């Protein structure tokens, strides 16, 4: 048992790698899909064991309240998504959109991506974190292009180019942080070790740190899909396979945000440096309002929800920008709820697209009648993402709006305006998707109910009751974020 607790971090990282290797060797997609699920499940279990106990912080890995929540969420959604992708992929094979050889590649890449994200969340070194995030990004790039249609390749290409620029910015930011730390901490690895940086951040060269933060915000912000560096996100979500869209929205954005948060904590400690809050507030509001208006003219269902992801990233960044225990709590909660809800929505949407044979919103109507299960879970999911009670996001938005209004009324008004506009668009599309007389092709599909319902149930419970353990973590992290 103790062995487990001293090695579970290693397990969380090792299991995906091993699975990836095996998957590359393994022919036959059924088995590999099952193995994919098994690997993700094992990763999730070992991540759970982190709650009970984990190895002490060392220069390479770090487990604290901030990332433990992320890592567990990450592995959980990874697991449910692998479940979903099992049924999804089999359907893709039947329709011949994918060939088994691609599937082998797909599953391997899935594990590589999971490894990259877990690594990014766990490492104690900003350089390694950078490398890990890039690894995850490249893996997703390859998977986005997997259909090899014109649109898919174009989306992948765009993603690739923009992401590379983001990578470059992030790296430059990292170098700048190192330079800022250099005089204080001294040369070598220590100057890149997170915990060390955190302990000394107060006396870093402030203006260098400010410059670094700008590059990091833009660099990692590209991954997080913040306006104006969001451009890759909608197409990548729309053209890639749906499990990848779910993972992108549910996980990769969170990991990028995690990186931004880490560096915000540094900035918060250094009072002479430029205040990160206003920047994040501005970018967050911009993303929120821009995405809210973009929702209205969407004709592709997956692109629609991709934009809603941008909108929520905006809200979250805004929340952390506002800062303070309440807003940070709201931001963390919103982050968790969003990744659960949005991935559930993408599960549903994937099945819907398979059932209707199209992603065009105009061709999909009356789902609650033609596919009651899918239709009503879509209704539930969209209401959840639009912040309707009694679902989780309502609580976070309640906290965020009320606390913002008490502190900066004008910002709160803008926030509310954005939320209202987004709600209008989402509801408009929801009604046309879920209600009305069904039309077009209505093929039955094997719905993988478990992941959808697991996510929605969690969201529904969280809206009414948050377990004190979770609350304690969130509050602690909220105070860490300052």
């Amino acid at each position: 048992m103790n062995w487990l607790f001293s090695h579970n971090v290693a397990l969380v990282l090792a299991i995906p790698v091993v699975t990836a290797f095996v998957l590359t060797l393994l022919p036959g997609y059924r088995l590999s899909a099952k193995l994919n699920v098994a690997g993700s499940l094992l990763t999730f279990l070992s991540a759970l064991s982190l709650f009970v106990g984990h190895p002490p912080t060392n220069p390479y890995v770090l487990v604290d309240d901030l990332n433990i929540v992320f890592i567990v969420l990450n592995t959980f959604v990874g697991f449910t998504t692998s479940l979903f992708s099992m049924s999804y992929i089999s359907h893709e094979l039947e329709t011949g959109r994918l060939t088994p050889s691609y599937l082998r590649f797909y599953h391997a890449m899935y594990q590589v991506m999971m490894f990259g994200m877990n690594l990014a969340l766990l490492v104690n070194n900003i350089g390694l974190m950078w490398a890990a995030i890039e690894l995850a990004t490249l893996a997703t790039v390859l998977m986005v292009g997997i259909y090899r249609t014109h649109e898919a390749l174009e989306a992948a290409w765009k993603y690739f180019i923009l992401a590379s620029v983001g990578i470059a910015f992030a790296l430059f930011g990292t170098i700048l942080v190192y330079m800022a730390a250099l005089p204080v901490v001294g040369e070598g690895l220590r100057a890149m070790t997170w915990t060390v940086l955190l302990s000394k951040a107060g006396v870093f060269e402030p203006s260098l740190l400010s410059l670094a933060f700008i590059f990091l915000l833009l660099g990692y912000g590209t991954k997080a899909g913040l306006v104006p560096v969001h451009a890759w996100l909608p197409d990548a979500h729309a053209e890639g396979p749906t499990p990848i869209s779910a993972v992108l929205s549910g996980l990769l954005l969170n990991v990028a945000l995690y990186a931004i948060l880490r560096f915000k904590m540094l900035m918060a400690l250094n009072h002479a440096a430029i205040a990160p809050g206003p920047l994040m507030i501005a970018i967050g509001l911009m993303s929120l309002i821009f995405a809210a208006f973009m929702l209205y003219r969407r004709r592709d269902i997956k692109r629609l929800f991709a934009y809603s992801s941008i909108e929520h990233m905006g809200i979250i960044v805004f929340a952390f920008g506002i800062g303070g225990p309440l807003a940070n709590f709201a931001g963390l909660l919103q982050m968790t709820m969003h990744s659960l809800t949005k991935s559930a929505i993408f599960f549903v949407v994937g099945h819907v697209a398979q059932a209707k044979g199209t992603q065009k919103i105009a061709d999909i109507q009356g789902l609650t009648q033609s596919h009651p299960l899918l239709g009503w879970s879509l209704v539930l999911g969209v209401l959840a993402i639009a912040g309707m009670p009694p679902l989780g996001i309502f609580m976070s938005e309640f906290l965020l709006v009320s606390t913002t209004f008490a502190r900066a009324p004008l910002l709160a008004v803008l926030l509310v305006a954005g939320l209202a506009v987004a709600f209008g668009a989402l509801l408009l599309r929801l009604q046309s998707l879920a209600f009305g007389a069904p039309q077009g092709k209505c093929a039955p599909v094997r719905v993988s109910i478990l992941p959808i319902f697991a996510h929605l149930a969690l969201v529904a419970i969280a809206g009414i009751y948050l377990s004190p353990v979770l609350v304690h973590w969130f509050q602690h992290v909220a105070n860490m974020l300052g």
Partner: protein
Amino acid sequence: MPIILLLSGIAALLILALLALFLSGRSSATSVVYGGGLLLSLGLLGVGAQHLLGNTAPLELSLPLGLPWIGAHFRLDALSAFFVVIVNLGAAVSCLYGLGYGQHAEDPSRVRPFVPAFVAGMNLVLLAADAFTFLLSWEFMSLASWALVVAAHRDPRSLRAGYIYALMASLGTFALLLAFGLLAGPNGSYAFAAMRAAHFTPAVGALVLCLVVLGAGSKAGLVPLHVWLPEAHPAAPSHVSALMSGVMTKVAVYAVIRIVFDLLGPPHWWWGVVLLALGGASALMGILYALFDADQKRVLAFSTIENVGFIFVALGLALAFRADGFQAAAALALTAALFHVFNHSILKGLLFFGTGAVQHATGTRDMERLGGLIHRMPVTAFCVLVGCVGIAALPPLNAFASEWLTFQAILLSPSLPQWGLKLLVPAVGALLALAVTLAAACFVRFFGTSFLGRPRSEAACGAEETDVFSRAAMLFLAGVAVLAGLLPGVVIDALGPVSSSLIGHQMPVQTSQPWLSIVPIAASRSSYNGLLVFIFIAMSAGIVASTIHVFASRRVRRAPAWDCGFADPNPALQYSASSFSEPIRRVFGPLLFLARTEVEIPPPGSMGPARLRVHLEDVIWQRLYMPVTGLVAGIADRLNVFQFLTIRRYLSLVFLALVSLLLVLAIWS
């Protein structure tokens, strides 16, 4: 203990909703759901009434739900107890009606699960004692009712109604959310108790008042926030329309009272002005809209707006009196408002049930295609007649008593020191009088065109009397309306605890008055006795009728109508709903609706028909709402370009962002 009972009842309602989900498709579902709903809401009604009449101290309860570090607080005091009674009375009767009507509502499986959920949501709003629980239940209530509005999902009109409704509802919720954010302060003391303890600057108070009027007013249907109401209420099945129109609007009134009278502390006199102005405008505009509409349910929805306006006027008076320290007058006005809340919930339920029965019998809600139903559906006709007399505020029925009290309160206004109020209140009083008589005209039109005269369509000819459950529900409500009209003192005394808990003063006990008459201030000043008036009318009518029948003739001959000699065989020739409202349209139309009438008279000698066209324009929708939608659409179109840029352009965006941030940095340091 009672509060635990209430909460468990609400939980049971939610379970019932889930049960309805699983039962959907079974034949027994309707009876199970509505029967269960009936019993549960009766239980809740009993508990609430017991607490209200028992006049016991407020009960508190907090559960480890909702916001983690605050928990979910629940509180049952006189105010919430009174509204619990209102809500569950309406809910119980609606369920009774639903037992019959529920079967032949289209697609009942989309209605059943949400009715108990809706009722549960409304009850939760009344019990909630912290901002989060309140808003959660508030929005849940809106959500459930939205689902009920779009139940007839194949009809694009009901989808449109649902869209507008949900949009306005969430806007209202946001407004309330902001208000609570202001009340809770930056460190988030969301419990109502904390808000009561806090003190607010006048600016904060003013802002909160405006936000509450925006939030709860839009739910209650105050002009100009009413646009969703006439769309949404008719779209739902009739027993739900009754709930939405008769009960949910009252929950909104509850929200206003709770926040403005309870949480916000001592008021300023001009707060009253806001409510008075909005209420007066709603009363007049609402009833005028109703007069010019031919759809039965829309007429009822608009008349709801009128009554809500009435209630808000009374509330505004109460605020003004309270601000100037006239506690007795404030108690009178508040009691009038609450009494009217009760009356309107009863009457509006009754009328919506009636239209539901008519719609089921004839398949239409269009008055121009109805007529003569009094012969085919006597019971329904009688109940609806009672409802019409009541809602037109005619003695001796109940709504007259409450409006009479309101006028008594208005007559006390000259003692107010502020000149603004001195001049405003009489004007509002005249406005209300106008609204009341217009309401009488409106419901003469309503009843006259749909139940009297000759049938205007085949469907109206073949109408059948509705089922026994619906009849029972309507007869019950009619009975309650008559009783409350004859013995208003009982209701007023029941309302005593509410006003004393909110204002610290209550009206004199009425049931101890001689002959059970009601005396708001002093017998020398004014008094009214519905019971005696009713007895006199009954007696004198009886005496006259019997004497004539005994001493003079009692013979009756049937003959075709005389009509000054023009016997017109064609029912289309009788006065239609639109022609009935023509004189009033002539008076108010051009001013408030930009009404234009075009008359085409064919040239002499040609046999072509003459045509008369009337154009009414909903000024509020055109001038207030269309611009906003246009704006959103315009911005969406402009921004949509960003979906179609080339990679290079996106890179330029990144580049610009970077450069501008660097500039910021350069300037900052």
